[in-house]
């Protein structure tokens, strides 16, 4: 059963990766990174039990703690850019 869940997670990672590669906007990529982060945490937690060594949950814990620093950095990136470029520059690409 762990295998089934892992499989679902990996397939979803692939779907998220497709979204990240296709885009179209940069925010879609960030969304995909975020999704993949959550899926990775879940995958790692499932796999620790698949391996039968639950003491390796530290890895999933690390990811669950620091994954969103990247998203916050993106927000800060756009915020500071909007602040410096001034209004009107709408960053559409």
């Amino acid at each position: 059963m762990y295998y089934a869940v892992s499989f679902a997670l990996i397939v979803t990672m692939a779907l998220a990766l497709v979204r990240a590669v296709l885009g179209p906007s940069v925010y879609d990529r960030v969304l995909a990174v975020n999704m993949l982060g959550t899926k990775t945490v879940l995958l790692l937690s499932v796999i620790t039990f698949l391996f039968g060594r639950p003491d390796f949950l530290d890895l999933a814990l690390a990811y669950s703690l620091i994954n969103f620093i990247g998203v916050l950095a993106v927000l800060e990136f756009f915020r500071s850019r909007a602040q410096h470029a001034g209004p009107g520059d709408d960053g559409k690409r």
Partner: protein
Amino acid sequence: MLETLLDILSWLLLSAGGLFVFVGGVGALRMPDLYTRMHAASVTDSIAPILIIAGIMLQAGLSLASIKLAAILLFLLLTGPTASNALASAALLAGHFPEHAKPLDGESKQ
């Protein structure tokens, strides 16, 4: 008897979680614009960890692993929606409005 019951329950939780994960992935791929995709991804990203980690916790029983799993779940539930919020803020800030919705008056002219 109790063990079988727990097993069945945890398998149910795990498969439901896997299903939600998959649905979220499909949603993120198929939805028409950024905000709907974000919706699909972030909602399932909240329910799927609850189900999957609850399923694993039933298997782990009362142990250090369960406490760690609870911590992982807590942090995922805290950070996931926050990250979605931050991402939506970033997108709005850069002038990326929902395609099928009119921007609110007053906020449209920044």
